[in-house]
């Protein structure tokens, strides 16, 4: 009581409020914005390294070998030489790996005109073991069983082309996914807003369910449903249809981006509905004008939101994609997956940092350019929308087409979104329980995930609500506008690139702060903070400032105005923001992997189970637990906020 009084007295002072606002902006700049794009500074400071190591005509090689499982393990040694049948010496040693689970690495900067030879050595407390030798000629002979460590066939690629290839795949997939989402999302949004039918409420709820499932679990579940899965017993009902990694990723990304598109479009359709009614009531004849002046701009706004959300989500997704690809047994990679994989390796081989930086830079820049382009195209280019819009309306409202449309929508939701999301239950129910790796690791990763998600939700709320207030209610309209735009940046930057950039920022600028837990928290704050700010700012824009002004004149100090007047009015949006931030953090893989390979959150643990250990059954169980637990957390959050009302 005393503290609240002191606080409210403090905040009654203009200077104190100015200081607080400055702090909020400072926090956003230093903890969110700057780390997110810090890697861009690499262009200026280290362009030389990028151009010699990445953009020159050099190759990279992927090595993987069999795991050494004895307890006397000290470290793996990766050796490289330009002569065949070489001996392991100090001079051939490239780097060491002190984790016996890490049986994959990448070497870069190899000249294409030279033949390189590689061997892996294992240091144990008593002896040194070495593997067979492989080389970059493309010739590989299965080694005789006398080797305790087997080095598998190396994969040699031109570094630059590999990066472009992966980035291209990412953008291609994101574009296709967004288009499909739009085509299938419009009739769905239409049904939700304009149609009354039995079970509409269930429909409404089902639609959001994939959002609460961490993408790593979604990836596994979707792959089991759709894909040809070598090495996994297919559960009954599995389609065993897809063997193309591209198609599988597209199908997967639709699952979690579709609800965003439908929600964005539905929100707008709802407003259009209201506006039509008002127009009809008040000025009868000018309905057409109203449609032209109100409907189209609104619709465009919703479309931009939907497109950006879907595109950014697809471009950024890492965990689910990794899991799906591993389940399929594919070596294909998207941009974020490439970053995740390399970052893991870069811990032992720092030569990868320039390539990582370059990939992140391109990803960030392209995402930003795309954001701007989509905005311009959709808001400035008027022609197509004006024509397209009335057509589906007419088309969908008469005779057979609407029935077919509804059927199509229903089938799409069921088979493309819902069944793949929860197919994992069928797998776990029917699969043979396999030998397990032990659950200790999973529980601690789950605890870790919850710890992070809880902390970042608290930080987001504590510092995101004031930011929203500053944006919407701040004295300076210009500042609000600038902040409003900048807030979106972390939202569209792919999280793997964000994670890498952020890790680079903190470890180079403030290395004393770069413990894995802190880094993970910073990274998760960076990409969830905008979710809270956006939600709250939206709600504030809709509440009239006059209530706050009235409260002030009645003698309420700014903090009292916030607590007694503003807070009760925007509570639902705060809840929505909190749930989004919490679930996004809980499900995030890309940023976690890219910021620190040592931090094992629950989704990362699931990715490892599948990728590194092929422990599919256990991964399935872990997914189900994660899904159940995040649902409970959501219900709990809802309950708490309802009660507080």
């Amino acid at each position, binding site marked *: 009581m005393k503290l609240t009084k002191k606080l409210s007295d403090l905040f009654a002072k203009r200077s104190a409020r100015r200081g607080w606002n400055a702090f909020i902006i400072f926090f956003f700049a230093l903890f969110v914005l700057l780390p997110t794009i810090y890697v861009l500074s690499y262009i200026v400071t280290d362009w030389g390294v990028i151009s010699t190591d990445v953009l020159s005509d050099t190759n990279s090689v992927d090595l993987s070998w069999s795991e050494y499982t004895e307890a006397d393990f000290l470290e793996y040694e990766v050796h490289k030489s330009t002569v065949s049948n070489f001996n392991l010496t100090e001079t051939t040693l490239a780097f060491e790996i002190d984790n016996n689970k890490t049986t994959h690495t990448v070497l870069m900067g190899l000249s294409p005109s030279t033949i390189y030879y590689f061997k892996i050595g294992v240091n144990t407390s008593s002896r040194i073991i070495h593997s067979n030798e492989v080389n970059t000629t493309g010739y590989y002979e299965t080694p005789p069983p006398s080797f305790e460590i087997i080095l598998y066939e190396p994969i040699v690629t031109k570094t630059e082309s590999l990066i472009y290839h992966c980035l291209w795949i990412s953008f291609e997939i994101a574009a296709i996914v967004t288009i499909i989402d739009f085509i299938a999302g419009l009739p769905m949004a239409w049904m939700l807003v304009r149609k009354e039918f039995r079970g509409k409420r269930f429909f409404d709820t089902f639609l959001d369910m994939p959002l609460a499932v961490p993408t790593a679990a979604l990836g596994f579940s979707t792959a089991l449903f759709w894909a040809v899965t070598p090495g996994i017993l297919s559960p009954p009902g599995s389609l065993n249809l897809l063997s193309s990694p591209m198609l599988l990723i597209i199908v997967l990304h639709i699952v979690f981006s579709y609800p965003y598109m439908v929600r964005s479009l539905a929100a707008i359709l709802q407003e259009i509905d209201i506006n039509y009614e008002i127009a009809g009531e008040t000025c009868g004849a000018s309905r057409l004008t109203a449609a032209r002046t109100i409907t189209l701009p609104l619709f465009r706004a919703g479309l931009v939101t939907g497109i950006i959300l879907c595109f950014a989500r697809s471009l950024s997704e890492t965990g689910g994609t990794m899991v799906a690809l591993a389940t399929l047994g594919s070596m294909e990679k998207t941009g974020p997956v490439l970053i995740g994989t390399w970052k893991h390796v870069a811990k032992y081989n720092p030569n990868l940092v320039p390539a990582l930086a370059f990939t992140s830079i391109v990803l960030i820049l392209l995402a930003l350019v795309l954001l701007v382009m989509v905005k311009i195209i959709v808001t400035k280019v008027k022609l197509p929308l004006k024509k397209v819009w009335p057509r589906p309306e007419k088309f969908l409202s008469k005779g057979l087409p609407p029935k077919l449309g509804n059927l199509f929508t229903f089938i799409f939701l069921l088979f493309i979104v819902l069944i793949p999301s929860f197919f994992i239950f069928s797998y776990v129910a029917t699969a043979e329980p396999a030998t397990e790796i032990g659950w200790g690791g999973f529980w601690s990763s789950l605890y870790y995930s919850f710890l992070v998600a809880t902390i970042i939700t608290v930080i987001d709320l504590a510092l995101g609500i004031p930011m929203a207030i500053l944006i919407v209610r701040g004295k300076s309209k210009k500042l609000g506008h600038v902040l409003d735009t900048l807030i979106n940046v972390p939202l569209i930057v792919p999280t793997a690139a964000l994670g890498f950039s952020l890790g680079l920022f903190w470890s180079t600028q403030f290395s004393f702060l770069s413990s894995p837990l802190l880094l993970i928290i910073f990274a998760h704050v960076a990409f969830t903070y905008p979710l809270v700010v956006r939600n709250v700012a939206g709600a504030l824009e809709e509440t009239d400032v006059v209530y706050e002004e009235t409260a*002030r004149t009645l*003698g309420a100090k700014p903090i009292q105005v916030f607590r007694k007047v503003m807070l009760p*009015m925007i509570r639902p949006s705060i809840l929505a923001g909190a749930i989004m931030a919490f679930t996004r953090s809980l499900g995030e893989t890309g940023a976690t992997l890219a910021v620190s390979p040592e931090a094992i959150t629950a989704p990362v643990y699931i990715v490892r189970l599948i990728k590194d250990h092929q422990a599919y059954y256990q991964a399935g169980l872990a997914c189900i637990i994660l899904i159940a637990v995040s649902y409970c957390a959501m219900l709990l959050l809802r309950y708490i906020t309802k009660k507080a009302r």
Partner: protein
Amino acid sequence: MVNMRLSNITKKYGKIFAADGFNLDVEDGEYVTILGPTGAGKTTILKIIAGLIDQDSGEVYIGERCVDDLPPENREIALLTQGYSLFPHMNVWENTIFAPTVHGWNEKKIEVIGKEMLNMVRLMDRVDAYPRELSGGMKQRNALARALASNAKVLLLDEPLRALDARLRIDLRYELRRLVKDLGITTIHVTHDQEEALTISDKIVVMRKGKVEQVGNPYEIFERPTNIFVAHFVGEANFVEVVITKKSSDKMEMIDRSGRTIISKPQDFDVGKKVIVGIKTEHTAIEKGEKPGTNTFLGKIQRIMFLGKYVSIEVKLEEGKKLHVKIPTSIGTAFKENMLVTVIFAPDRLFIFDYPEKGLEKELEVE
């Protein structure tokens, strides 16, 4: 309880002056109305007084103290906004005791004040109702109770009756005045409704484009407007452009564009000057047929509007100009559309104003 003074307040939004050197003196316990068309800057003035907007220049004094450095919550001013803005998540009781609660008064005192205020506005039986369940009049009374419970020394009312039905608006305006007068609170009431201003004010400030046009009691504002705008906006008036041709100790002679002679009491204008002659429609007479003489205008009745007790007759003169006449309905029934009539200006009721720089039309613009 306290007097109040605004000194030279200016506030600009882009190129628009919402307040332009605005001065105002309010005496202790006085009921002052700021009357002006929409967009005149009335709300802006109230918000500046309340501390919700910072003026670009000028000072606000409450009592003898300049309050410009005080935040709104410390000014002891209660503002009743245009839509009442009752907090939607609070019921009548919670709304009413909002100010006492945030002030941290003890619970007994809060209870007493809340009950006193709600009894005063006759809402004691609706304490549990939420704003959405209240009628317009109840909302207005609840908002008033909430404002008065704050112990404010000055009450600012921004178009407090605007959202109500016509009938209720008339009843409530007297009640409003009585309530605050009984409590002795200094009040500024903002309205665009001239009838409302005329019936309840101790003092009226006519405002346009951020400026004070005239200050005075209702009688002065209506009967002795000091400029064309006030004459036009308060009540209704006819205006004619004339040139002064003769002046003597007991009368002044003028001639309009069509050569009609108009005579008035002598006023402080020179012969040969172009001026505007104005007269309230209430003081304009009408007779059937053509009547020769000065101050007469021959024309045809264009339209007759029934206003209840009065009729308003629109007469079109030969040159196309229109004049309006307001007469009691009992006399008005004798007139029909298209009738040839003579409109007569009573010489002792004429106002004479300088010819406005930007022309008569511009001066009559309300917004």
